[in-house]
Structure formats: structure tokens, C-alpha cells
């Protein structure tokens, strides 16, 4: 007779076998047996959030900065519904999360019991898969399967809903690796053929105006993928641009790097995307913030798309060569094949792409990220630049909220390593950055973790400062405070005749006093001349800090692809703002 365990014990045995060291969560009635069991498992530490959404984003931050899945534990009903935003965020940005939720006892399911909701129904469209476990003997298998689904193929969130009676019931535990025999993302194993590699290399060799367009898939494929990417880019001598999520895969200060592309991307990156004759998409998904109007997207180019998710290929943009593969595996094979046959490619091909590079240099001369600085008032771009200069020597991790500050951070903070940049790109979740920073700091205890925030976003999950203080996590919340929902205000200025409807926050809290009331350190910078000293002071404080950086209230985020325009017609700055056509207003 095999030893029997309670459902709650099985949960922890599975977590231990999956080498889980942290759980982010919040207790409640339907999940109490699991919380009761926590004390018996010293290798697993629980981080108590102040709201399940915060726990979810913290788990995301943990996952994205460590490469391991983030674990979330919530109760039934409101616990589960509060986690939905974080699950959806993780789904959009391909972050591996395993969410365990309590559920009312099986005999009460469907009776509108206290704190009951249809958790698997609600989370079905925002998870890769979810399970309601109605038999304790299924629990071990389901939990291990959940980890496998979350972490293989294109990563993403999963949820396991466990009724309270199942947590008490006794059942068998077993752990066998590779429980999932079926195809996870359309193809289980894809052997990369030499034929595919040769087609790829042939396109590289024929191109005189190539560009690499890389995305979050490179980061998700592991640090090795970034190494291979760097090798390939240097072997070819081609220019490279990155999506928001891909930043850090390639060094941000390298001369071959054109900066981020897309709606607020650089002039050179967007023009190169528009005019290229070969676009090499590695691990990006032709998102609408990148393509703009698809009919006019990069009209003259051949396109290669490497993606682990077959449904990403051909979804928005038709491509000429589609390769379903993990980035790291593919680049490894490609580089090997490329080196065998093209010994002196870089020097022999230099002539071919020299005209392209000189065109790119001309675009670069526009210095599209420039802004008019001030010595009276802190410009938000200047604040990010100073933060970068004063923290670049450390291995700094940056999270953001969503809005103008997020774009300024992406434009002006240069990342040199993968997994250092955590931002909500797909779902665009305001309130992501602060709890994400908590997860990042948990995974990287001795590193500097900064949340570049906006004052509106950060208030959405401000309660998590209490979590940071409880666990002594010295995260730095660097608020670019312009008193507006900046991006909303910018769109209202450009598209809605400056009708700033509800985008100004009157009665903001005093962030310094707020910091003090949470038991952390509050700081404020009001003028450019005190900024550097204050940033240095912030970095040196070994406690959580809220830094209230008062910035220009009217600053807009440029460059910008105005609505309705293709990539080669960007607005570079305020002096170039033009009346946007009615058709264009639909687009922004």
C-alpha cells in the first residue's frame, strides 16, 4: 500500500519536486489547508502580497528576471478574480506562471456558495490551460503537467483550481517527468532542416538592405539565445532593432543597434524597417504597435519569421520564410551552418550593405530621441538619462508601469543583458511595475532594482510597498510625476483638441509622506541641479525608496508614428506636430 498524502501535502510535494523556492500569494477560506501545510516545508518561502494582482505581478517579475516559473497562490472567488489581470498580463507577454487557486468544496460547486466563482471558466481565455481537480488522485499529475505546460513551447500562465475538500482528502503522490506526450504548441519537436538553414542563409546573402527585428522570444529562450544573437549580428554586420520586450537581448549601446522600433521607436529603426529589402524577425510577433497599418508595413521586403509558436507566424503579416523553432536552438544551428560555408562574409559583404549603412547613418543624424532640455524644470527624458548614467555600472534591473514614462525608459535606458527589463507590453497593465520589482528583488537579492514609474500607474498597486517593507526588499520606485496620466494627456492633446478629460489627478498624495507611512524612505527632486545628488542618494539607501521626481507636466513622448501613417513618416518633436487627418485619428 503506497503512502497517502493530503491534497495540501501533495501540493507542496509537487512544488518541492519542481524546485520551487518562492510562492507569492494571499490566504483565504478556500485555500487554508494549503496555508496550514506551509509550515512543514522550510525550503519554500511564501511572500504575502497586499492584493492578489500584486502577488501575480510579483510572480511575473520573479519569472522574467530569473527564467524560472512564478508561483501564485490565491483563494477562491475574489482571490481568483483579482489574479485575472496578472494572468492575462502573463498570457500576453508569455511569462510562465503557475497559479494555484482554492475553490469551494466540490459538493458546493454550482450553488453560488460563499466566495464561489467559476474560476476555470473565468481564466480559460487568459491561461494556456487550466484544471479543476475533482479527484485528489489526479492532483499530482495535474500539478506537474501544469508546470510543463507553463514552461514549454511559448511560455505562459496556467491555473490549477483545487476545491477545499480535495485539499483535505488523502491520495497518492507520484512524480514522473514528462507527463505530456502531446504537442504543446502545434509541433512537439521540430528538427531544423539544412534546407531551411540554407534558404535563410541564401536570403541573407542576397540582401543589400537587411535588418534584424528581434523580440521577447530571444529573452524567453534563455541567456544563451542572446549570446547567439550577438554572434550572428556581428558575423553578418547587419543592423538590428528590437521590440519593447526584446530590449537587453542585444547591447543597447552597440553601434549596430538602431534602438527600439514601433510607435515610439527611433527614426532610424522605423525607417530601416520600412525601407529594408530583408526583414529577419526573430522571436517577435508583428504586434500592431510595431506594424501600424499592415497594408503599408515594410512594402518592399522579404520577410523571415522565427517563432516557437506556429500561430504567431502569418497572423498579422505574411512572411516569405517561416521557421517554427526555439530561438536558441535555431540560432545555434544557423551560426554553425553559416560559418561552415561563409568564411569571410563580413568583409566580402561589406560593400553590398555600405550604402544601406550610410542611409541609416543619415537617419541617425536626426537624433530622434533628442529633446529640449531645461535648467529650471526636470525633463522626464533627462531624469531617465541621469538614472541610466548613474546606475549603468551596476547590474541594474528595471521594471516600469505603463505610459509615457515606460516609453522614455525604453528609449533612454540602455540595456546590455537579457532579463534586466520587465515591462507590461502586451496587456499594458498600469500598476505592473511596483509589484514586479518586488518579484525581481526576491529573485535577485543583491541587485539594484528600480521601478521607473508614473504617479498615476503606481497608485494602482501602491499597497505593495507594504510588502516590500515587510520582506526588507530595497526596491526603488522612481516616479516621473507630471500629475497627469501622461500618455492619455498626450493623445488628448494630439487627437481630441486638448480636451483633457479626466486625465489630471487632483489631490495626489504627498509621496514622501506616503513613503514614510509605509515605513520606507521618501525623497523628492524638484529641479535639475539637485537630481544627480538625489539619485545617488537613492541608490545608496539599503531600504525601499519612493522617489518623487517632479517633471515637466506638458512633455510629450517623441518620436511618434502618427496615426494612419506608415513607418517612414514619423513626428520627431513638438515643432513638427501637424494636424492629424480624420482617418489618422482612428489609428493612434
Amino acid at each position, binding site marked *: 500500500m503506497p503512502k497517502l498524502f493530503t491534497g495540501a501535502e501533495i501540493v507542496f510535494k509537487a512544488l518541492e519536486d519542481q524546485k520551487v523556492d518562492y510562492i507569492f500569494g494571499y490566504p483565504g477560506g478556500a485555500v487554508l489547508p494549503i496555508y496550514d501545510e506551509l509550515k512543514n516545508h522550510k525550503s519554500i518561502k511564501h511572500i504575502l502580497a497586499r492584493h492578489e494582482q500584486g502577488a501575480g505581478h510579483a510572480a511575473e517579475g520573479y519569472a522574467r528576471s530569473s527564467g524560472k516559473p512564478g508561483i501564485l497562490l490565491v483563494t477562491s472567488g475574489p482571490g481568483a478574480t483579482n489574479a485575472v489581470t496578472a494572468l492575462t498580463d502573463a498570457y500576453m507577454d508569455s511569462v510562465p506562471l503557475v497559479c494555484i487557486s482554492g475553490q469551494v468544496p466540490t459538493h458546493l460547486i454550482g450553488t453560488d456558495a460563499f466566495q464561489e466563482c467559476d474560476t*476555470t471558466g473565468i481564466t480559460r481565455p487568459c491561461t494556456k490551460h487550466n484544471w479543476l481537480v475533482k479527484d485528489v488522485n489526479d492532483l499530482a499529475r495535474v500539478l506537474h503537467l501544469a508546470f510543463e505546460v507553463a514552461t514549454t513551447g511559448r511560455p505562459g500562465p496556467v491555473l490549477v483550481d483545487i476545491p477545499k475538500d480535495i485539499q483535505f482528502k488523502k491520495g497518492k503522490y507520484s512524480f514522473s517527468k514528462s507527463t505530456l506526450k*502531446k504537442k504543446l504548441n*502545434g509541433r512537439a519537436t521540430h528538427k531544423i532542416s539544412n534546407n531551411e538553414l540554407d534558404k535563410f542563409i541564401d536570403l541573407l546573402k542576397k540582401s543589400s538592405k537587411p535588418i534584424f527585428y528581434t523580440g521577447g522570444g530571444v529573452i524567453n529562450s534563455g541567456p544563451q539565445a542572446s549570446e547567439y544573437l550577438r554572434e550572428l549580428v556581428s558575423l553578418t554586420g547587419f543592423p538590428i532593432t528590437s521590440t519593447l520586450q526584446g530590449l537587453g537581448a542585444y547591447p543597447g549601446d552597440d553601434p549596430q543597434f538602431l534602438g527600439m522600433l514601433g510607435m515610439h521607436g527611433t527614426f532610424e529603426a522605423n525607417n530601416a524597417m520600412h525601407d529594408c529589402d530583408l526583414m529577419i524577425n526573430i522571436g517577435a510577433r508583428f504586434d500592431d504597435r510595431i506594424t501600424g497599418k499592415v*497594408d503599408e508595413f515594410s512594402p518592399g521586403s522579404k520577410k523571415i519569421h522565427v517563432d516557437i509558436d506556429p500561430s504567431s507566424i*502569418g497572423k498579422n503579416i505574411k512572411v516569405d520564410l517561416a521557421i517554427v523553432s526555439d530561438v536558441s536552438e535555431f540560432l545555434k544551428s544557423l551560426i554553425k551552418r553559416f560559418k561552415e560555408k561563409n568564411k569571410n562574409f563580413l568583409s566580402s559583404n561589406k560593400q553590398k550593405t555600405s550604402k544601406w549603412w550610410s542611409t541609416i547613418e543619415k537617419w541617425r543624424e536626426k537624433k530622434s530621441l533628442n529633446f529640449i532640455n531645461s535648467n529650471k524644470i526636470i525633463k522626464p527624458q533627462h531624469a531617465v538619462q541621469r538614472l541610466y548614467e548613474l546606475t549603468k555600472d551596476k547590474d541594474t534591473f528595471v521594471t516600469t508601469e505603463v505610459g509615457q514614462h515606460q516609453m522614455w525608459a525604453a528609449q533612454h535606458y540602455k540595456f546590455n543583458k537579457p532579463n534586466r527589463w520587465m515591462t507590461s507590453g502586451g496587456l499594458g497593465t498600469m500598476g505592473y511595475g511596483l509589484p514586479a520589482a518586488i518579484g525581481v528583488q526576491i529573485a535577485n537579492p543583491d541587485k539594484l532594482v528600480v521601478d521607473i514609474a508614473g504617479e498615476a500607474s503606481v497608485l494602482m498597486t501602491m499597497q505593495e510597498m507594504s510588502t516590500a517593507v515587510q520582506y526588507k526588499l530595497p526596491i526603488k520606485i522612481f516616479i516621473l510625476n507630471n500629475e497627469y496620466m501622461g500618455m492619455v494627456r498626450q493623445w488628448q492633446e494630439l487627437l481630441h483638441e486638448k480636451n483633457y478629460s479626466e486625465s489630471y489627478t487632483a489631490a495626489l498624495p504627498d509621496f514622501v509622506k506616503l513613503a514614510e507611512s509605509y515605513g520606507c524612505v521618501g525623497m523628492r527632486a524638484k529641479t535639475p541641479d539637485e537630481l544627480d545628488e538625489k539619485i545617488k542618494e537613492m541608490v545608496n539607501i539599503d531600504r525601499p525608496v519612493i522617489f518623487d521626481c517632479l517633471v515637466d507636466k506638458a512633455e510629450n513622448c517623441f518620436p511618434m508614428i502618427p496615426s494612419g501613417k506608415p513607418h517612414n513618416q514619423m513626428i520627431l518633436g513638438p515643432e513638427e506636430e501637424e494636424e492629424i487627418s480624420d482617418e489618422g*485619428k*482612428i489609428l*493612434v
Partner: protein
Amino acid sequence: MAKSKSAYSVPGKIGKTERHIIVVWVDNEAGVLARIAGLFSGRGYNIESLAVAEVDKKKHISRITIVTEGTPQVIEQINLQLKKLVPVHKVADFKRGEKDILFRELALFKMLANAKKQEKIKKICKKFNPVVLDKTNKSFVIQVTALRAEIDKLAIDLKRLGLISTSRTGAVAMTKGPKIFN
């Protein structure tokens, strides 16, 4: 153009739509139909008809036949998205009108009709494998199997002969010849 100020790009050109029959083999587990239907509704694909039943009692495999309409790009997405679902084993996609594939729908018609009328109705249904399932002196229930359009037309013809209730399945499909889909 009406003044619209949405934050997204305008739609591009929409291609020609085609009707496809998509066959999906799935684990027959709780919620699997909701996953398939949710994928269609969530991504804005449409389901014209749907037929589901377990076809392998031992392995608990159900076969779902979905009739849908979309541009070639949308049809491709439907296939790829379906394949990503964990309980989905395989997906087959047939274009309506393909030669080596059979489609059938089944319909039950309840008619108010006397004996004389009943003979007339049987005649109309003759081409569609009619089976009389129930008969009284005032009414009868007739079963036919045919293509969707044929049943559509039949229902119109029967209307004037006393049709009072119609029940139809979605289409089911199978390939011709000894080959099966793997």
C-alpha cells in the same frame, strides 16, 4: 469618414472568405467544448454548425466537426490556434467543395399531415434517405440525411405541407476511400 478617435490601426483589406469544415479530435473531458467554443468567440471566428460526440470510448476521444467561414488567413489561424489547446490531439481542415470528402447533416421534421399528404411528403424527401420514425393519423416525424443546402431547401418546401418542428444536427465529415486522416 465619421470622426473616430480610437487608439488602433484601421482595418486592412479583407480577403475573400471561404467555408471550411474543421474536424478536431479532443480528449473528452470537462470543459473541452467550452475551450473550443471560447477560442472561436474570443478571437471573433464564427461557428456555423457544430457536431460533437465521443468516438473512442476507451481513450475518451471526441470528434468535433465545425463548419466555419473566414478568409484563408483566418482559417489558418483557426487551425493553428486549435492545435495549441492542450486537449486537442489533431485537427483536419477541409474546404467546402473538396472532392474526396463526404459531408452529411441529419434533420428531423415533424409534420401535421393526413395519409394523402404524407405520401406526397415522402416523395419530396425521396432523394434524402427518408425514414419515418413516428406516425399517427394526424402527424408524422421523418428523418432525412443530406447536405446543408439541400435540407435548407427541403425545409422551405415542407413548410407549406404542414411542417411544425425542425431539429437539425451540424454537419459531420469523412474522407472518401480507404485513407483516414492522421
